[in-house]
């Protein structure tokens, strides 16, 4: 059985010219992924630290795992950051997230929508992608990426970090440029 997560980072300048790219197997699906999975499979609740840093838990709920994100939303979907802390199984947020905006150190977050699952040969893939625009007035170096999803605890709604990667090569995004992060979840029978 193979179940893999891949990510791809592509940096472009303001004219769309590709400046750099990185394509690797993801470092990690985190423990929170499995906590939500458990809540659904066992139809119960469990402990889970939300991105707020507080243990609000997870319970079976239809909104769980949602990471489709609208433009300008930086609390859900694919997210990026500048942190370099090594990934650990209990990470609950990025080390240092790049927030939505056009101020120094901020990037504009476009929509993030998972694509249809497709079967080719013995693989079943689905891809989710998000582009971030740098209109901050200066260069920003992206060093980490991840996925935040919606999660509901027994009492509170929130967000959970379910995937986090530290990029093998820091990706400098020039002012006016962009970085696109793709995550592909693949099952191979």
């Amino acid at each position, binding site marked *: 059985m193979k179940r893999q997560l891949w990510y791809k980072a592509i940096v472009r300048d303001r004219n769309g010219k590709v400046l750099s790219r990185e394509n690797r197997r993801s470092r990690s699906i985190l423990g929170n992924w499995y906590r939500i999975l458990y809540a659904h*499979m066992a139809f119960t609740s469990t402990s889970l630290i939300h991105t707020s840093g507080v243990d609000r838990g997870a319970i*079976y*709920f*239809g909104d769980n795992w949602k990471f489709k994100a609208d433009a300008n939303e930086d609390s859900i979907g694919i997210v990026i950051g500048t942190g370099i802390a090594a990934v650990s199984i209990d990470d609950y947020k990025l080390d240092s997230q790049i927030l939505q905006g056009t101020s120094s150190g901020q990037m504009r977050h476009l929509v993030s929508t998972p694509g249809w699952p497709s079967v080719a040969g013995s693989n079943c893939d689905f891809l989710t992608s998000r582009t971030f625009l740098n209109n901050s007035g200066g260069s920003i170096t992206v060093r980490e990426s991840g996925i935040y999803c919606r999660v509901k605890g027994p009492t509170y709604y929130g967000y959970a970090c379910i995937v986090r990667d530290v990029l093998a090569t820091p990706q400098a995004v020039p002012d006016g440029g962009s970085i696109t992060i793709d995550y592909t979840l693949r099952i191979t*029978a």
Partner: protein
Amino acid sequence: MTEKMKLKEGLSYEVVVRDKRGKILEKIAASSQSYVSVWNQCLYVLNRHTSYTITDTGGTGRSVSYSSSVLRANAGVGEIDHGIRVGKGTTPITINDYALEAPCGEGTGVDQFLHQAMAASSPAVVVSDCSFWVRRVMVNNSGSTISGIREIGCYVMTKYSPRYCALGYRDVLPGSVSVPDGGSVTVTYTLKVTV
């Protein structure tokens, strides 16, 4: 990127056969062969917050929308539309499998088991692993040995009402397992990720 840095995500199973006194007759433990495409389709429905046509265990495409019941496997006593199942099929797994090939039914007739309630452990973190297991005991009160058990798998719910269920993962065992009358077979799947 070095091998040590790669994500390891594992699904493994253990099959234990016991006689009527609880004595272990056989034990098989191995890495699971496969999640099937339904698994990614269920995740897609939840991730995108949308609807998708997913083939149910009867082979019929069903429109499924995000809900709390997607991936639910906590079947109760006697419930066989979701939860762990065993069967006699031997056909190798394909990505589009939608059911066990020849699942054993519920009851005390020939080749039938009494399916006990599913059990699950809470997720546990040990160093860089996070894992939990799901388990089911199936008791043979058919009056004779049930032989030729070759496949196991887990059905998951995709919709609560009307009830639709689909195959999440399936394995073909390396050899046949026989469960004596009065005995039981216990199947445990462990889902684990390592960073």
